[in-house]
């Protein structure tokens, strides 16, 4: 629970981490984020973190992949890790 309430870029989370979206980048992609349901305040799980930082997040049954550059710009708040030694 040490990591709780830390705000970090999405690119650093590990698979299994539960996070809350704090901010998504502005601009053209923002609309796409909202359509896909990744707006501020949503809770998501990091399903996979691929080598190089490509991130796959899951919100309920929906899975979305983000490139590492984008994952750096999405700020999230750690909620809990699936297990601490993960």
């Amino acid at each position: 629970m040490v990591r709780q309430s830390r705000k970090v870029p999405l690119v650093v989370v590990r698979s299994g981490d539960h996070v809350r979206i704090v901010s998504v980048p502005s601009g053209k992609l923002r609309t796409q984020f909202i359509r896909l349901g990744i707006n501020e305040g949503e809770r998501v799980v990091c399903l996979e973190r691929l080598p190089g930082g490509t991130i796959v997040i899951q919100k309920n049954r929906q899975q979305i992949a983000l490139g590492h550059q984008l994952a750096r710009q999405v700020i999230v708040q750690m909620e809990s890790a699936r297990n601490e030694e993960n």
Partner: protein
Amino acid sequence: MGQATEKNSGMRPTAEGKPLAHVEKHFHPGVPRLERETEKTTVALVGNPNVGKSVVFNYLSGLYVDVSNYPGTTVEINRGVFENYVVYDTPGVYGISSFSDEESVTRDIVLDADLVIDVVDATHLERDLFLTQQLVDMGKKMIVVLNFMDEVKRQKVEINVERLQHFLGVKVIPTIAVRKVGLDELKQSLPDAREGTQREELHSLLHTMLSRVGSQAEALLVLEGDPYVAARHGISPGTHQERIYIDRRNRVNYIVNHVVVDHATSMQLSGLLGRWAMKPLTGVPMLLTSLYLLYLLVGKFVAQDIVDLTENQLGKGIWEPWLRSAIVSLMSWPPWLEALLVGEFGVLTMTTTYLLFLLLPLVIGFYVALALLEDSGYLPRLATLVDRLLNFLGLNGRAVIPLILGFGCVTSATITTRLLGSEREKTIATTILQFAIPCSAQLAVIAALLAGAGFAPLVVYVSVILAVLISIGTLLNRLMKGESAPLLIDLPPMRLPRFRNVARKTSVRTYQFMKEATPWFFVGALVVGMLQITGLLDAWQRALMPVTTRWLQLPPEAATAFVMGIVRRDFGAAGLYSMMFSPMQIVVALVTITLFVPCVASLMVMLKERGVKQGVLIWAGTWIVAFAVGGIVSHILI
């Protein structure tokens, strides 16, 4: 359907049934509107990608279907007629606006339709209802099809259909489309299509805009900042997009929370498979396995076994001799004309053999493979897996789609580079396609030639082409200004492809391809035939002699293949088919012909997509790189 009969050309009823007289002004140059039937009710079939829309479409339309490209675009539109309805299948989209050609086409079909059938993946309500709610907000008469109810049950999820119906204000029909469950009810329910519940937040916004635009659907799109719809009405696009979108997203989340109860505990196998497809450790073996299976299907079964049967037995064994004797016995031809018609490069003999007995089976094989990849939901996961790698070439994972499509037809793949986010990516992907990706017909000939040459030539060929591909991408990424757009994609669930959909996609695409390719083959055969008769072919061979025989160390006739390759790539590779080479000469010839200029059709599309300057630059570049790399390989190997 009382209002269906009131229509006449140029007059379009709004949702309220009042005709609009200013339809002509609605044209925008990029995407002209479809001509509408005057008598029948038009139905737009709308939904996110991979929600079973085409299964519903097949059921509704039955046998009477035609396929066309939407005017001014490359977007394929299926149109079917049943009873008193004309139904249009639209491309899968996540929302309606002008982000892409697909969205623009869907937008215009929806705007023109009398009613909308919205197909929703019941296992992905959160994603899909965003589009549904947008259609409700547009005030379209509609019916919602809640598909994949069997999967919902299997995943131990409950959906309260009554309540969903209440929230949306329109009829919701649960279906299992592939088993035809619920589809008859859908057909019977079309007269019950109605407008959904208008949300209060939107009411006042819409009210002011409505007086200026005339239809609620268009008013909403203008408010959401759609530049094209706004331009049609001569007003500036609205600035409320983010507010409306966030409101809509919250509304959808609210609905989902009150409608869906999730009892699920564990991951499904298809979910696991989908995850494995993205992790390098499991994803790379999966990719290699799929590629190997596809190679067995396309490269071995079709390209070797079937083509051997059709090309050699049917084409060269039966068809060509028969045609030749039939033509010769018809009358006494001047020798040059006889050669032109039924000679070595005969317009009638070689062209039909190439087209029907070589190309057709190959193209069918390839499109089957492509449809399987698409319908299984594998491509987006592949895009995720390779995203980081493609970043080095200045591309994101999505570019894997045009690049893979390029193995089918470089021409159509060049068009799909449009789905990439920036001009920079489009240029890089187009260049890679035009240089280093052999198309299916060419690939099949390559596969057949390499299969005869042994393992080492295969390895050399693949490594050289890969090296060129990587160098081009890396170089362009370094040299070009700006940054490429990052990856952001939705991963649809993995599903078993349905036979009927694969068959339909394959037949439609094969037909389009053959229709496009056939004239070029006749032109090509005619040109080569004329060159041969006039002696220009010999002259060209002599002119290229230093390059072909000294630099590339190939027999002089190989120059013929290069002439043919200018017309069509596969045509050029097919020209190599009949020549006698040593295994290493095969590698050199194939490397050169692969890197050599794209076909005329491809060049035309590239000039259109990338502009004359860039297009010509890329085209000229392929000459230089092809002969340079071919020569270097030749001097190392031979």
